[in-house]
């Protein structure tokens, strides 16, 4: 067996895991911190990818357009998230399962709209020239695009955790998560906190979308394929656990990659699912909603 038979899935899987992590980061914020399951999160990711495409229509130099597209995608997806929060989700904080279904409806509508606005076969997002090369790792030519995904994920994680830890807004978010009533009586506007959290979480999906557009196709269906794995990553990582999310994303990415290498891509999905179920059997703690004393 060649070295790259072992190395390739590891590196590819790490990149896949990084992409998953990008998709899951926002979810872990909105679900982990707010308890809202946003099934349209995948479509926010799609919005980010289309935003990258649109940016490229204006800035044709792809070397430049992608760096510009990242913040644009963040803001576009974030604004859509904000809109969703203000119009629908804010009325449903006490009905988490129903929120899940309402956002399924939103995701159907967004997918269909994208299908009608953009060509149904999808749009091409040009890769910048500086991502064309390869890095040779132990005899395996690793595409720089994958390395870029990993770097992007690292930057996002670092920025997010710094934001949560060191800014006053981050502290307010954590205070609200910890004890909403207390936060409210201490003068924190929990409404503003909710909105900002949702904006940020959705914006991160947009960033993930740019990364996804550089690796796979950009089309109306692309979001749907991320939402379930991203959610499983959040679940396996444990609620509101950034560290857990990172490890879980990497593990799932690498596992999928090896499974796919040994079997087929689709069997890999089935195996990954079984893996998660087995994992839940072993470590259900990661799954428990925050332990409270109430019986609700």
């Amino acid at each position, binding site marked *: 067996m060649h070295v790259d038979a072992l190395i390739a899935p590891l590196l590819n899987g790490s990149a896949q895991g990084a992409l998953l992590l990008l998709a899951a980061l926002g979810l872990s914020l909105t679900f982990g911190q707010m308890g809202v399951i946003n099934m349209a999160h995948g479509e926010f990711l799609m919005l980010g990818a289309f935003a990258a495409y649109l940016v490229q229509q204006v800035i044709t130099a792809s070397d430049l357009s992608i760096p510009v597209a990242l913040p644009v995608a963040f803001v576009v997806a974030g604004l859509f998230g904000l809109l969703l929060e203000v119009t629908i989700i804010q009325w449903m904080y006490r009905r988490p399962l129903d929120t*899940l279904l309402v956002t399924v409806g939103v995701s159907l509508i967004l997918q269909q709209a994208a299908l009608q606005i953009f060509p149904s076969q999808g749009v091409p997002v040009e890769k910048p020239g500086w991502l064309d090369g390869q890095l040779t790792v132990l005899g395996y030519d690793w595409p720089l695009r994958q390395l870029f995904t990993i770097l992007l994920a690292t930057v996002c994680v670092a920025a997010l955790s710094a934001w949560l830890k060191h800014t006053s807004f981050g502290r307010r978010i954590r205070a609200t998560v910890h004890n909403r009533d207390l936060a409210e009586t201490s003068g924190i506007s929990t409404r503003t906190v909710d909105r900002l959290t949702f904006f940020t979480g959705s914006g991160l999906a947009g960033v993930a979308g740019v990364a996804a557009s550089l690796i796979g196709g950009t089309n109306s269906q692309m979001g749907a394929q991320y939402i379930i794995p991203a959610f499983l990553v959040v*679940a396996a990582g444990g609620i509101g656990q950034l560290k857990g999310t990172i490890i879980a994303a990497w593990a799932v990415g690498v596992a999928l990659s090896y499974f796919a290498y040994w079997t087929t891509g689709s069997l890999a999905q089935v195996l990954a699912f079984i893996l998660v179920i087995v994992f839940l059997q072993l470590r259900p703690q990661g799954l428990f909603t925050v332990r409270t004393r109430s019986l609700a």
Partner: protein
Amino acid sequence: MTKKPWISLGGIGVFAVLLLAVAPLVLSDHWLNNLGKYCCWAIAAVGIGLAWGRGGMLVMGQGVFFALGAYSMAMHLTLESAGDRVPGFMVLYDPLAPLPAFWEPFRGAGFTLLAIVLLPVVVAGILGYALFKRRVKGAYFAILTQALAVALATLISSTIRETGGDTGLSDFKYFFGFVLNDPANKIMVFLIAAGLLVVCLLVVWQLYRSRFGELLVATRDAEERVRFLGYDPANVKLVAFVVSALMASIGGAMFVPIVGIITPAEIGAAASILMIAGVAFGGRASLFGPALGAMAVGWGQSSLGSTWPDGWTYILGLLFIVVILFLPNGLSSLPARFAAARRRPEQKAAPSAATPELEEVRS
């Protein structure tokens, strides 16, 4: 409180007469066939109503169990049509391809029927046991079931030689010895599906009025509290989940001879969500709501969905948003809502803690 179940039973009777006696007389073959298809979705929906409406388990992957029934049936019908030969699609790429081992037992009619019943029971039993005992619930449960549907659909799509892949299984000529093309046999197949729907309604009718129904609602609303009465809520939920899986499988099995084709698209995430849509629309916790809602959505899907697919998707999306947001108990809660609205000005009754769905529960 004691009278209401009998009214519901009467309703099932009327429904049965309409489906089994009136529909075959007044509907064209084409529409009768369509109605049969809606009945199959309705059977699965009745089970979803039990698991989700009464049990609080949002089953977003009923397509899995629908698939177990459907593919069991489809394999049998394919083999029956192929006779001694290996089914055509398998030898498309390799004329000498053998029949995969797991197909072999489905030659037998008895085995097939047994599989339609036992496969969902075993799969749902294992999955439910694993998840409920570990207290996996709420959104986690919902997403995991959906993940299973996605995984199964992907698996079927990619195993074109064994399962027909995306093109699915079709071209069935016989149904347990009956020629499927014969109009009389088509009516028979419809009657079986409609009859099974009525049976499923009777089953949940009895479950809802039984002590189990009350216990299930109690478990839905306060799972931990039930534990302190000496029950293991996991078992209560498991029973409801397994029954709902069985119903989905039965719906899937009848879907095959009626529609004549089964593909991964009919069982994947989107199809599973469509089943939920009907239940939400009709009223998740009511007796008739899930079935009627599923028939309505089924009608929309097969008529609007093909003539105006873009518009239909928007309608479906809006349906989720509007119904869940404003009418969480679906259309079946409308009468009670109107009645409550009319009563309110006259008498200021004690504040009713009950939502409409509970009127049903208390019956």
